[in-house]
């Protein structure tokens, strides 16, 4: 096979045989893995103590001894999808959302992508919302911290993620806790949870580009020294403060 297409984001051309299709979108795989580990590591003990106080007969009682991420999926868990597969709650879903913007700020095509990170708790009863709602807030904050740090000590031995996958990544907004939007039925009822919206920038690169992208250095502000050191030698200049996309006028 011959190709001079280089790559786009974390996807390299020509794509070799893959053991899993997730290798074709390695940034997605990194995001899902990092966030799952971060939530489980940072909030595992707190989750155990919350579950210990859930009364018998509640559906959450079956998850005592398990982690705050019971199952993961890499697509939007709509009602259409959820009636097809079995998952443990809480369900963590990370997926690309909407219609990414494409434009040329320089000679390279850029893609601005919105992502949704859903943490879905399930059919929570009103009397549990005070506790579980606060826990959901903590989950949202862990997600933001994990994105800012781009790594977790318990995930792949603390290796910085997203290098060569995203030129830029940041949390944008939080939706909830409340009726989780992907899991919502008609008339606002549905499963309880929280959604964090992320934004990433990916760009195409040439075949011989060896270091075409970097993590936005703005997100290293306030990070521990060893995190910053982990980025040493890594070119963060190309995509720092990337230009705004065209306004559409």
């Amino acid at each position, binding site marked *: 096979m011959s190709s001079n297409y280089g790559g786009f984001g974390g996807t390299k051309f020509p794509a070799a045989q893959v053991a*899993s*299709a*997730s290798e074709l979108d390695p940034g997605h795989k990194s995001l899902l893995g990092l966030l799952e580990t971060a939530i489980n590591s940072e909030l595992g003990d707190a989750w155990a103590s919350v579950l210990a106080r859930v009364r018998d007969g509640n559906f959450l009682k079956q998850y005592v001894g398990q982690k705050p991420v*019971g*199952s*993961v*999926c*890499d697509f939007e868990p*709509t009602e*259409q999808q959820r*009636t*097809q*597969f*079995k*998952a*443990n709650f809480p369900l963590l879903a990370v997926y690309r959302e909407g219609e990414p913007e494409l434009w040329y700020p320089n000679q390279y095509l850029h893609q601005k992508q919105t992502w949704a990170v859903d943490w879905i708790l399930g059919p929570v009863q009103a009397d549990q919302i005070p506790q579980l709602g606060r826990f959901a807030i903590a989950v949202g904050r862990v997600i933001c911290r994990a994105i800012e740090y781009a790594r977790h000590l318990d995930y792949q031995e603390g290796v910085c993620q997203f290098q060569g996958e995203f030129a830029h990544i940041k949390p944008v907004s939080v939706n909830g806790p409340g009726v989780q939007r992907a899991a919502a039925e008609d008339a606002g009822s549905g499963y309880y949870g929280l959604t964090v919206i992320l934004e990433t920038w990916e760009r195409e690169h040439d075949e011989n580009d060896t270091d075409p992208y970097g993590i936005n250095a703005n997100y290293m502000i306030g990070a521990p020294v060893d995190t910053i050191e982990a980025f040493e030698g890594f070119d963060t200049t190309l995509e720092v403060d990337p230009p705004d996309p065209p306004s559409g006028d």
Partner: protein
Amino acid sequence: MTSRADRFRRIADRCRAKPGQFGLREHAVYLVRSSWSGASFGEGTQEETVVPIQVAHQQPPKVRFPSQRELALGMMGEGDLEIGPFTPNYGPGGFDRDDLNGSKLVVGETLLIRVVGPQAPLPGVMYRFKNVNVDRALRVTLVCKPAGVS
């Protein structure tokens, strides 16, 4: 010793087999439970366990596509399908409702319904559950939607 309820169900089940015995049930229906060999759901090689949904004498259940009237009145949706009635478990016969509610699935497995027949040529059409109707003591019906339609 069978209960009185089981005797009623057996009678109902045998009655439901008659149209099939006359060749009037054209669609076969299967529950398809899938698991994967990969690290996560949907990854690796898929392995299917297929269980036919049948009434007495291994006859297929009634499969009904909505009429224009039902669509116009909103009683059923575009692409919906009604399967049944078939009979709840009664000792040696009937269909185990636990097979329909997902409680036997392992985390990461999927459960769909495959319909094969004149309206769903081989290899058949996959449907997902919309409703499991158990509003009568002697019957269960399923309302399904095509798996690819949101």
